[in-house]
């Protein structure tokens, strides 16, 4: 039972990550490889506030979101003029810079040793301690986020994002301030990724930089590519599939030494096949055209 609840919690955490990346990739057409960086920034900011300064959960969640939003300007503003491949490379660069900082700034982040002993959330006297209560707690936050994503996607703001994705120059010709929209959507996506990071840190009670690598960014991207982008159902579907898939592989008795490789090979093949035959993913809307 705990095992199923653990999977549910992971699905909740990754659903927020996938849907927030979807705002960039599926709505705005910005292929970003830096989502794990914001996920990590959220996890580290809240953890450091709770452990070093004795903050409680909600204020540290709030400050983690603010921190991720501020840091998102560091990538969104320089890369505003960039398109396509250049943007991908710039976002990849940001990811690597953040990882290197988490790994090497040992005085603050403890680098590769990681930070243990992260407290479970305590909200107004209600302590979320057991795995079951954590899965419910993360589920409530995930549902709130999904509703927010739905409203963002359906709002005039969301429609402008789709216009930017389809034809940036035409959207600009209609008087839309493209840079402003890109900066905003990046900030929103980074803020939500930070929420996932805070949830992850509170759940695992231990974080180290290896959870926030470039490969993690690629994994989050592959969730939404396989599930589909540009709507809500695609990323949700992708999250459930990609969290459950490794568990199915476990029953196939693949030796532990090669299991991570086999898993990644399957992700890779899935990406290639989907891009070739069904670029909108299993349940998405945007065809990367």
């Amino acid at each position, binding site marked *: 039972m705990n095992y199923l609840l653990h999977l549910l919690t992971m699905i909740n955490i990754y659903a927020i990550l996938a849907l927030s990346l979807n705002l960039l990739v599926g709505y705005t*057409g910005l*292929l970003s490889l830096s989502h794990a960086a914001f996920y990590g920034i959220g996890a580290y900011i809240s953890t450091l506030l709770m452990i070093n300064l004795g903050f409680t959960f909600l204020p540290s969640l709030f400050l983690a979101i603010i921190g991720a939003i501020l840091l998102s300007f560091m990538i969104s503003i*320089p*890369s505003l*003029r*960039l*398109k*396509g*491949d*250049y943007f*991908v*490379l*710039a976002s*990849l*660069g*940001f990811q*690597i*810079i953040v990882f*290197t*900082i988490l*790994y*090497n700034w040992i005085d603050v982040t403890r680098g590769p040793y990681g930070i243990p002993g992260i407290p479970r959330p305590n909200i107004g006297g209600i302590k979320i301690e057991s795995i079951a209560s954590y899965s419910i707690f993360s589920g409530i936050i995930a549902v709130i986020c999904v509703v927010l994503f739905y409203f963002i996607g359906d709002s005039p703001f969301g429609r402008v994002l789709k216009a930017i994705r389809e034809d940036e*120059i035409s959207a600009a010709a209609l008087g839309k301030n493209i840079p402003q929209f890109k900066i905003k959507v990046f900030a929103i996506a980074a803020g939500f990724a930070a929420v996932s990071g805070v949830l992850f840190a509170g759940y695992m009670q231990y974080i180290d930089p290896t959870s926030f690598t*470039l490969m993690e960014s*690629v994994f989050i*991207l*592959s969730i939404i*590519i396989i599930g589909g982008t540009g709507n809500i159902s695609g990323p949700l579907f992708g999250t459930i599939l990609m969290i459950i898939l490794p568990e199915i592989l476990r029953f196939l008795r693949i030796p532990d030494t*090669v299991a991570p*490789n*086999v898993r*990644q*090979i399957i*992700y*890779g*093949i*899935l*990406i*290639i096949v989907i*891009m*070739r035959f069904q*670029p909108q993913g299993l349940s998405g809307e945007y065809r*990367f*055209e």
Partner: protein
Amino acid sequence: MIIQLLLNGLITGCAYALVALGFAFIYNTTRTFHFAHGAVYTLSAYIFYTFYNLLNWPLFPSIILTLGLIALSGILIDEIIYTPLVKQGASLFIQLLSSLGLYIVIINFISMIFQSETKILNPNIQPTYSLGTVILTRIQVITAISFIGIFCVLVVILRKTSLGKTIRAMRDNPDLVSAMGINPQNVRRIVFALGSALAAVSAILTGLDVGIDPHIGMVAFLNGAVAVIIGGVGFFEGAALGAILLGLLQSFAIWKISARWQDSITFLILILFLLFCAEGILGKRRRAEEVKV
């Protein structure tokens, strides 16, 4: 000390330049952001390791066979992954993502077969040459000479032969190339074979120098791609220039700061270039609608 750093930077730059030139050949000609170039780099290092270290073949046959196999695999990657997408009229995003998928597949196959620890290709202590206070290892000298030789040959091919003209024409306008009665597919094959072989040369030289692990390809690819962009996309000479500049900057940055920050420094350089000189050293400004997504 300064001269030593300068030479080290130049030679690192030469190794990057080979990868960058390979990437530029493919990117400039086909517009495919060939992420899997990094996987091809790793693959060539391991193919060479198999022949040279596991099967104990002599050096030169191992190198020749590796280059041949890698050129072939470059063509196969294009035929299996990219060409069908191009024929479907798929966007460059789709090609980029497929390339990322292919990278994941190849790298994981390699680490599944060979494990992920570092393998040393050349266990002997390398002979060194000293010129006054400057010391260079033999492999460094060979790297520099190979780069200069290969670069000269490439420049002659690109500028003087009809093949070079075709490649440059394809860079400027692929539709017109096929209108001239040249099969663009053949040009693609040549470009992918040549580009992959260039990465293999760099992988073998660097592998003999510092050893190999499955992740060397990503670092090499990133340095190469960053070099292409800071040198100026669309210019084959720009790739080499960018790579050497990157090698020099890294060499001095490592001396002043620390090697742990090397990758961050690479991307800081990239981001500074993108901010202040987005078209690269040799590039010229283009209008927004000219820049292909």
